[in-house]
């Protein structure tokens, strides 16, 4: 443990040293400032520098530096250069001193909102590479950094992975500002807090932490903030990186934080007292903490009628069970405990396997490998080709394998049902987890039959119970039992009856709606 922490400490110091290496105060003469910047300008052709004069008699020499393509050119020309060159009045400064001009420009000339005064060279470099416009003036050591970033972004579209028949059709995009706005627009509560972080030494990714102040548990908020602060990585490319860096348990196939592509879902989670983490560049939000049951819930559950939702939810539980255990059950029943199968069924299964030269285990594993390859191929290929592969794999491999005596009809059905069940699980990470656990179950059943299967499930249960998501038991409300939460776990009750927030998630304000509120 200790060598690891030491390594991290060294790493941290290295990063800090990196940052502060060129930290000098800006000189007041413009030429000197430009000289300081020169090495940067020479290396990068996409940095634009332009000297100009402020309006006045005599005009003050100034210089503007910015990155090409990131800055909004129209705004730069109209709101900054135009106002400075035509309307800034240098005369006022003669009386009040040169240093006054920065404040004067800030108050009277620039018609943009986000401006900051900076004084160190490292800050200038950081501002330029973050995409700000930086203004220098002759004779004044302070510089102004102005935020007029304009990033070309995708339109808000329907989410790909979490499509819903009813309900909102808006999904998150790659831009964190838009995503935050999408949430704000749905949750107008002044208690919604948006806390910003910059994570990643080199990528300097914007990360936002969102929570409702009077609902969310302060302990969890503090915990997450601390963890975000302590991330030392050179590159954070989206929420999936954050997820891996802040989770409690690494040695598990199960995802501990759920992600969502839907702003309405994110708002719902915020109202339950959870925390949302957004990262620039990823079109999804991280929900902290997340429970195992929430991975089997879909957003339609709350849009459709409760009785129907209950019925659908039952199928998702069933899908998880089948996805994990159907091939294992087939092996165990056929090669270890045929006495559990009704005789008629057993005979027909045995007839189907008549021409197959492999033991059941091998047959299952071969089919499992084939189907995994088909899925992998289908994922990477463009849609029309993927469909062709699907058809080829489904019909040719399936039908031909039976005809060639390489597989029995039953195993094709088993594998097909398993694969379909796998994709009935609403969360994509949980789908991957279930595929891995299935292999474990197959091996247990292949070695020890039904008893091995039983042991496998027991181990899986213990593993799931031992997991925690940011300190919250993963298997709640089942273990520990939280009976009030059954109304949204086992079944889904009427929205009018969900008067209290889930007990499984620690919150400050337990009551969602008081009866007298109507």
């Amino acid at each position, binding site marked *: 443990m200790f060598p690891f922490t030491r390594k991290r400490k060294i790493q941290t110091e290295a990063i800090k040293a990196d940052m502060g290496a060129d930290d000098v105060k800006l000189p007041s003469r413009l030429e000197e400032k430009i000289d300081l910047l020169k090495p940067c300008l020479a290396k990068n052709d996409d940095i634009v520098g332009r000297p100009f004069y402020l309006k006045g008699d005599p005009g003050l020499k100034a210089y503007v530096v910015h990155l090409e393509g990131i800055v909004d050119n129209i705004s730069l020309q109209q709101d900054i250069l135009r106002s400075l060159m035509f309307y800034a009045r240098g005369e006022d400064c003669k009386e009040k001193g040169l240093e006054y001009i920065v404040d004067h420009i800030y108050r009277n000339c620039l018609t943009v909102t986000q401006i900051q005064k900076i004084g160190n060279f490292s800050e200038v470099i950081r501002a330029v590479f973050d995409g700000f416009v930086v203004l220098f003036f002759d004779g004044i050591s302070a510089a102004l950094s102005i935020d007029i970033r304009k990033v070309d972004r995708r339109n808000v579209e329907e989410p790909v992975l979490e499509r819903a028949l009813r309900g909102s059709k808006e999904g998150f995009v790659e831009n964190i500002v838009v995503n935050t706005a999408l949430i704000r627009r749905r949750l107008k509560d002044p208690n919604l807090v948006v806390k910003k972080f910059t994570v990643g030494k080199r990528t300097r990714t914007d990360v936002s932490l969102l929570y409702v102040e009077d609902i969310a548990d302060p302990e969890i908020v503090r915990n997450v903030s601390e963890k975000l602060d302590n991330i030392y990585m050179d590159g954070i490319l989206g929420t999936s990186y954050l997820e891996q860096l802040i989770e409690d348990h690494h040695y598990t196939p199960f995802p501990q934080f759920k992600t969502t592509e839907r702003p309405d879902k994110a708002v719902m989670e915020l109202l339950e007292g959870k925390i949302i983490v957004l990262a620039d560049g990823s079109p999804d939000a991280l929900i902290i903490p997340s429970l195992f049951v929430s991975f089997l819930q879909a957003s339609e559950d709350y849009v459709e009628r409760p009785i129907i939702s209950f019925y659908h939810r039952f199928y998702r539980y069933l899908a998880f069970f089948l996805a994990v255990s159907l091939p294992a059950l087939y092996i165990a029943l056929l090669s270890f405990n045929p*006495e559990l199968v009704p005789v008629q069924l057993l005979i027909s299964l045995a007839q189907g396997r008549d021409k197959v030269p492999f033991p059941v285990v091998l047959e299952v594993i071969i089919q499992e490998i084939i189907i995994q390859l088909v899925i992998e191929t289908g994922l990477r290929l463009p849609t029309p080709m993927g469909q062709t592969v699907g058809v080829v794999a489904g019909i040719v491999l399936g039908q031909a394998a039976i005809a060639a005596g390489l597989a029995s009809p039953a195993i094709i059905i088993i594998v097909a049902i398993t694969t379909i069940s796998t994709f009935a699980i609403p969360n994509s990470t949980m789908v991957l987890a279930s595929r891995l656990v299935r292999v474990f179950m197959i091996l247990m059943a292949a070695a020890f039959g039904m008893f091995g299967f039983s042991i496998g499930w027991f181990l899986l*249960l*213990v593993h799931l119970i031992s997991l925690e998501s940011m300190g919250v038991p993963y298997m709640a409300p089942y*273990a520990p039992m939280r009976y009030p939460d059954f109304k949204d776990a086992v079944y889904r009750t009427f929205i009018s009856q969900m008067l209290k927030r889930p007990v499984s998630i620690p919150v400050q304000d337990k009551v969602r709606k008081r009866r007298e509120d109507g």
Partner: protein
Amino acid sequence: MDKSRFEITSKQLIFIIVGSEVATGILSLPRVLSAEAGQHAWIAVLTGALVPLICIYLIDTLYRGFDDPDFVRVSHALFGKALGSLLVITFILYIIFFQGIVIRIFAEITKIFLLPRTPLYIILFLILLPVYYAVSKGGRVVGRLNEILFWILLIDLLVLLVLLPLGDYTLLLPLKDLDYKGLLKATRESFYSYAGVEILLILYVMVRKKEEVFKAAIVGQFIVIFFYLVTVVIALLIFGFEAIQQLTWPVLNLLSVRHVAVLERLEIVFLLFWLGVGARPAINLSLASAYSFCRLGRLSLARYYVLTSMGIALAIYLVAIWPRDLIEVFQLANYAGFLFLLTSLGYPLLYHIAKFMRKGVINHGKTA
């Protein structure tokens, strides 16, 4: 692994008490009791329940005076370092011995019904694998596990209740010819089926709200009594006490009474769920012993607990593999039952006496 990993709620204590007591013993309970008491076997379930109830009462009153009711600390305070440690070690050894027997019986049943051709040492290993895994995760996880496994036990019980309409109530009659001698013998046998309640001696300290311990333990105990009562009564109703004597595990035979469509052999399905019940006492008691061992050796829980739990599992494995055959296992089970009486009644009584004698010497709570 910090100390909060060993905290359990009083609700979880209910299920831990149930889980520690109900094990493979329940499968043969109707035979054992009715061998002595005939159709009055069910009365023995009730009279035998006195032992665990007294045990719970004694343990609760014993710890009432202590701020930190830790088994190891209290032992040291009352008996001194050497004798206190000896008592704790004996208790740990007893747990290992007892659970070795329990696991062995479970493995034997598995071998007969599920894996006839697999060698016993592999079955034992298979059973101890989840036991070790669960124990190594600490008390909080074991507490949660007990909560969820309780419902599996309940499913098993419901399966038995399905048989109720098939029973013949005249098999419980006549009520009046009570053979007191036989009943006494049966009562002694039924004591043993409540083994596991002594876990409270160690788990007391882990419960978050100490004032709820007594209530929770008693509730758990009554659930156990109810389970036993239902099982014994149904077995008697279906088979009658004479026929039961021919069956080693009458409860498993009960399940083959009724034919259920598709599920051809109900007792095997029952046994698959049984893993959660049969291995549970071993999980709970191993947790207790591994925890005490770490406390006794002043070993840091973070570093040595997982290692200790592995050691305990290994020790249980060695005990379980030791007896040659099932007959020897049942003989050893009798000794274990006797040891249970010693630990569940003897230990608390001994501690009470020591506490009484040292009353003037020890300042409660500030014991070193």
